[in-house]
């Protein structure tokens, strides 16, 4: 196994190794010298562009985008202004910071996405240096201008420019600077010669490095670790200071004895690191300086670029792509020469086993005696994850699998998941894909994001393959990929709408959770409105179609889709949109064709815009509703004349609607109102607003008999009702004589029972009795009972031989127990039996 450790170098207590990732397949004419190079972390893409000052002004530089293995993804001539800095956002968009402060954003394929500016003043003063950084808020851009002012944008997707305060005494560019992230705040640490300043939103503070400052030199380079936790500063005296980024603690200070300013300086750490280090790059030398002070030197034969990673540093040269990292502890345990770690023994045991040697048994026994077999398996599994080469991975996994056979209660989970992870990792590490992720990085970034990245690269088949292999739920996996595929598909030119729709719907047909409206909106964005509309037809959720249709100004269609969704709020939304968009006539016409929307809008108007309601009915020639509208409107009028004129409109409309009854009734109402007003004026009767019945009641009560009679005739009040009214009023006033006279005036249309009742209401039994005899036989029992004459009731009931009536009387007399009552009861019972028999 010696060859595995061949590229290991001891550094302090740990080992560092440099692993080759790829032989670069790119062809660079002048290497990486004099070029702007930006490589995204997590094995991301690389952008290369010749620095503009190295070219004659007439030549347009070329911008090339490569995968980490050097395969060209895009290449195009740069047509905009001079670029100061290139960088990648978290979602792998390329940011190009121009001298004039404009930041142009491109996607992986070189398609222009958008741009923004770092502020007006920059146009004059020019960007002298820019840095692209990542914070918890997203991707940020920091620039320093020719007039030594810093401007920050912490999140390019939610752009808020912050101009930082002036740095006292700073003329021209600072000697070096870096962006820090502390306590959810983004700050700039800068050096002006030997002075250090910390810039935040509000102030500029001068800072001193902790642990004294024996560095009498000028700071020439600053490096912040990947996690923003550590800081390294390099002075022109060759000293390297390392410490915490909060500037509270110092780790160490090392004299490198190299005084020329480095080209690049990057932290090299890994989670659970044993020996963190700083990688310092010069033209011809790569120096790894451990915090402890040890160093490793790698001479270089071509210009290199370092890319900081979560768990190491990638070295990019024109011919090779390498990964420099601290050897993980498990790997060290297994592969270190003469290691007796359980993993190492297990690996050895398996090797012997394959050779059919009995030594396998010896090794196994040794591990088992120490009770370390579980650990051994775990070590092998974990180490396999950290290895780049498939044969090493296989050897380790086979050893783990071999060891597992001798264990009964080991959970296979870790083994299975590492196998799966490696399968995915090996697939994406393939030079044709070119994403050299380590296992640690992969775990940090999650499968979701990896799939996103495959999709950004339009590696749809691979992405789908990965999802299927990992059994990612369709919603989060395959459907999502297909949707993105469709989105990029609709942006392609050339194919006709029909072909496109057929192609997309064919592919997406049975995938759940596809949002066609999203795809359609992409199609619309790229100017294919017709295609968008066709695609929207496939959207199952009508509600989702509406916003886009409105955006495309297909309000009619939006309205019908909103109605289809059943969501009335959505209908309202479209209606209010359409209302603002169209002139009134068209708007009403549109509504007319959509009854559901129309009735909703009517509701809206009823509560909010009464006047519009009238117009609506007018438009539809809905006379009936219009009349009703006037009727209810009449009650809102304060003046009688106004009210009458509104009512007259109602009458007219009722007539047009051929609603004779209502028109007459309304006319009646007007007549009544006029009558009331007249009488109110004459006698101050306070009648206005009363109903006809109440008016007559009031008239009778105040003795205006004639007027009441007039109303009775004029309004053709039914006799019954008027009689009731009159006799009640007479009884109320206890005008018994009048009542008697009235009863004899003609045959009562309500019968005579009411007379009995009104008298009794005033407890006048004497008067009541007068009418009992006049009551019809059917009601006589009730009349007797009303005047509490049980015997009379009994007689009447028996006479009528009515079972029910006899029963009623019985129920009335059962309460008392006098002898006469008992007699009566007997009599009734007898009658009841006869009636029954009959």
């Amino acid at each position, binding site marked *: 196994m010696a060859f595995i450790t061949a590229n290991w170098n001891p550094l302090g207590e740990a080992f560092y190794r440099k692993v080759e990732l790829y032989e670069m397949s790119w062809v660079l004419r002048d290497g990486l010298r004099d070029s702007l190079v930006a490589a995204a*972390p997590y094995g991301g893409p690389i952008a290369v562009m010749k620095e503009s000052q190295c070219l004659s002004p007439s030549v347009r530089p070329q911008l090339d985008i490569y995968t980490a293995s050097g395969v060209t993804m895009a290449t195009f001539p740069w047509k905009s202004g001079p670029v100061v800095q290139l960088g990648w956002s*978290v*979602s792998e*968009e390329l940011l190009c910071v121009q001298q004039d402060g404009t930041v142009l954003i491109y996607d992986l394929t070189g398609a222009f996405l958008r741009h923004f500016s770092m502020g007006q003043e920059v146009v004059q003063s020019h960007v002298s240096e820019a840095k692209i*950084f*990542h*914070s*918890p808020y997203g991707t940020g851009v920091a620039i320093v201008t020719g007039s030594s002012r810093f401007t920050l944008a912490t999140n390019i*997707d939610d752009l808020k420019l912050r101009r930082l305060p002036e740095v006292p005494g700073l003329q021209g560019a600072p000697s070096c600077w870096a962006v820090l992230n502390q306590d959810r705040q983004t700050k700039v640490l800068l050096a002006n010669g030997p002075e250090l300043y910390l810039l935040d939103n509000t102030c500029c503070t001068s800072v001193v490095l902790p642990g004294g400052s024996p560095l009498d030199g000028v700071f020439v380079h600053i490096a912040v670790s990947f996690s923003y936790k550590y800081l390294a500063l390099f002075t022109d005296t060759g000293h390297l200071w390392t410490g915490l980024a909060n500037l509270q603690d110092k780790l160490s200070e090392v004299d490198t004895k190299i005084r020329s300013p480095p080209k690049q300086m990057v932290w090299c750490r890994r989670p659970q690191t044993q020996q963190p280090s700083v990688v310092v790059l010069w033209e011809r030398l790569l120096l790894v300086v451990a915090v402890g002070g040890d160093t490793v030197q790698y001479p270089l034969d071509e210009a290199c670029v370092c890319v900081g990673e*979560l768990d190491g540093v990638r070295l990019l040269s024109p011919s090779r792509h390498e990964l420099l990292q601290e050897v993980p502890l498990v790997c060290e345990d297994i592969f270190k020469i003469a290691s007796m770690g359980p993993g190492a023994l297990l690996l050895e045991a398996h090797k012997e086993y394959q050779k059919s040697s009995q030594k396998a048994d010896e090794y196994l026994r040794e591990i088992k005696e120490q009770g370390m077999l579980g650990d051994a398996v775990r070590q092998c599994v974990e180490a396999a994850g950290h290895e780049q080469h498939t044969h090493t991975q296989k050897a380790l996994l086979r050893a783990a699998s071999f060891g597992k056979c001798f264990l009964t209660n080991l959970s296979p989970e870790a083994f299975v998941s590492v196998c799966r992870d490696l399968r995915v990792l090996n697939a994406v590490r393939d030079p044709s894909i070119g994403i050299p992720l380590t296992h640690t990085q992969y775990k*940090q970034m*999650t499968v*979701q*994001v990896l799939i*996103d990245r495959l999709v950004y690269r339009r590696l749809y088949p691979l992405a789908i393959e990965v999802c299927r292999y990992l059994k990612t*739920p*369709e*919603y*989060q996996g395959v*459907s*999502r990929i297909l949707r*993105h595929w469709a*989105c990029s598909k609709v942006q392609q030119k050339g194919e006709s709408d029909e072909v496109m729709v057929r192609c997309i719907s064919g592919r997406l047909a049975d995938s*759940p*959770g596809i949002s066609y409206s*999203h795809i359609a909106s*992409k199609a619309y964005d790229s100017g294919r409105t017709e295609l968008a509309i066709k695609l929207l037809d496939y959207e*199952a959720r*009508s509600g*989702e179609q509406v916003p886009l249709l409105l955006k495309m100004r297909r309000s009619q269609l939006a309205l019908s889709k909103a109605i*289809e*969704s*059943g*969501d*009335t*709020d*959505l209908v*309202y939304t479209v209606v209010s949109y359409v209302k603002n968009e169209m002139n009134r006539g068209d708007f009403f016409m549109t509504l007319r064709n959509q009854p*559901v929307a129309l009735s*909703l809008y009517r509701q*809206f108007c009823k509560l909010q815009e009464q006047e519009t309601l009238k117009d609506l009915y007018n438009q539809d020639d809905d006379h009936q509703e219009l009349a*009703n509208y006037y*009727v*209810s409107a009449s*009650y*809102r009028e304060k003046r*009688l004349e106004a*009210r009458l004129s509104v009512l007259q409109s109602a009458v007219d409309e009722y007539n047009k609607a051929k609603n004779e*009854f*209502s028109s007459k009734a309304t006319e*009646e*109402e007007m007549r009544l109102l006029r009558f009331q007003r007249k009488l109110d004026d004459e006698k101050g009767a306070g009648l206005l*607003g009363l*109903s*006809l019945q*109440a008016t007559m009641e009031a008239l009778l009560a105040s003795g205006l008999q004639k007027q009441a009679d007039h109303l009775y005739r004029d309004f053709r009040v039914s006799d*019954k*009702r008027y009689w*009731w009214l009159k006799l009640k009023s007479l009884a109320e006033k206890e005008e018994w004589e009048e009542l008697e006279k009235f009863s004899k005036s003609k045959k009562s249309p*309500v019968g005579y029972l009411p007379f009995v009742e009104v008298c009794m209401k005033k407890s006048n039994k004497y008067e009541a009795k007068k009418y009992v005899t006049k009551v019809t036989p059917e009601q006589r029992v009730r009349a007797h009972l009303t005047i509490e004459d049980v015997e009379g009731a009994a007689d009447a009931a028996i006479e009528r031989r009515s079972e029910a009536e006899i029963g009623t009387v019985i129920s009335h007399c059962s309460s008392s127990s006098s002898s006469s009552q008992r007699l009566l009861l007997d009599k009734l019972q007898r009658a009841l039996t006869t009636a029954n028999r009959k």
Partner: protein
Amino acid sequence: MSHSPGNSLSGPVRRGPGHQTLIHGVKVSTSTLIPPSYPGLRRLLDGGQVAGCSEYKLSASDADYRVLCSIRLQPASRGKMAAHLTNGRVNLNILREAARKELREFLDKCAGSKAIVWDEYLTGPFGLIAQYSLLKEHEVEKMFTLKGGRLPPADVKNIIFFVRPRLELMDIIAENVFSDKSNSRDYHILFVPRRSMLCEQRLKEQGVLGSFTNIDEYILDLIPYDGDLLSMESEGAFRECYLENDQTTLYHTAKGLMTLQALYGTIPQIYGKGDCARHVANMMLRMKREFAGSQNQILPVFDTLLLLDRNVDLLTPLATQLTYEGLIDEIYGITNGYVKLPPEKFAQKKQGEGSKDLPTEPKKLQLNSAEELYAEIRDKNFNAVGAALSKKAKIISAAFEERHNAKTVGEIKQFVSQLPHMQAARSSLANHTSIAELIKDLTTSEAFFDNLTVEQEFMTGVDTDKVNTYIEDCISQKDPLIKVLRLMCMQSVCNNGLKQKVLDFYKREILQTYGYEHMLTLNNLEKTGLLKLQTNSRNNYPTIRKTLKLWMEDANEQTPNDISYVYSGYAPLSVRLTQVLARPGWRSIEEVLKMLPGPHFEERQQLPAGLHKKRQQGENRTTLVFFLGGVTYAEITALRFLSQMEDSGMEYIIATTKLINGSSWIKSLMDHPETQIP
């Protein structure tokens, strides 16, 4: 959820914290694709008792999934259980707990002390979900009623408006917010049951939209009302659907049914009758298609859903209910499960105290199946209640007599342990005896009897085509207009419309007696079909009555053998339809169905493989009957009776937009233009 068009594929999405974090420069998305919002999802996550959680990963975003996991570790329901919801065949408490959980989560979102400003209409329905104690636990210190002007002073960090999405309420909120001078406060709005773009637009126009920290929705569609009863408590549902052609409530109904299905499984069979039923079913089927892929993996609890339009059966609510519960509602009105009664009968008579200080506040009682006695007598015909009460009285006093027999310490101890239960039973008995007395005073009155006689004449088809003298007298006597309208509508319904002469006569009498403003009300009644002009077509009510056996001569009120006991002879049409559907099926009554308004239909919803119920021999099927536009207590009683019938083989759960009776129903259709004349 957000309608955010973005996703991580086309650039990072801006969402609330927690959905997306950036670690060491790489975006670690918890979920890069938020699936379409699934209405039941939140409920479902919170329900805790749903089976097969893993399937929900399909629709749950990662973040939500974590919530799902953590919730499943906790007991499903903590705090006070609602006993009345768990004793039915379907445990409706799951729904209530889900709603409570959501409420707690919203309250916790607004950190610090809070005051709630209530849209008054919502307090009743919320009472069915959570008591004040729950709110208090979550730092709700004050509660106000929403009204214009300034907010009452309150020393709280948060002001939360609980409102329906209504424009007029938005104006009031804007006024409140504007006049509130303290600027250290956070404002929140919780829309019930759904947030509305229209309202947010209005808030924006008023210039206060930016003042709100949280604008959220509280999806409260179907509220568990009792062990077998769900109500949306949507007062204006019938008016909206049948008068104003506003389908908002129907949309909420469909959404509510989707939530229900998310918790209780897809309902395989849907039947329906009526236009609204058709509309709801269509929306449900469409919503199901929209969420294809987020398959529901719960064993269905309901076998059938029956959607019934109220206008299929306009007659039943018009008739006076004659069950105990029905009469309480007719006379005193039950709102949100509570009834207010005149206090006189409930005076606490303590020794030594005279009856001087009679309580003046109405007595408020909660009525549901948690009360053992009430559960026993609520569904009886009122004529059978007296006997039941006296039987109960005997049992209780016998139980109290037991104390004399208790000799040993053990026996006494046992007696004492039962004492609280017995005392509760005794006070419950006292209450219901008082209520029964109150009702009896009324039902034995002449007026009640006359009214009932006329109703029964109409229902049996006696002289329905002439002017009815009783109605005429009622008008002359200026009886309450609602009573008159109720009778008039009933006559019209039982006669398939009134002749022009009869109709005009009634209308004239009403306008002259009660005022011309009632023209609008009469108009409304005509629009909804409650009143109508008889056209040339034949009066088909007798056919319907005969085919469906709507009138049973010998209704047995004491030991009923048919649903007709709930109206002492009349069997509610809606319930007959339900009964026939179960056996022998609607095919047998095609003719009658055609006479009733609206289409009738049947739909099937495909169940995922493996969820088909293997029915045990003799196991009952469960039907959810949904009354669109309201249901009466008597109809519920009739359905309960069917559930209990030994050979029915069917259990019914009832859902509705609102519990109604004839009076509240007619009232909801009345227009009251307010006169401005001084």
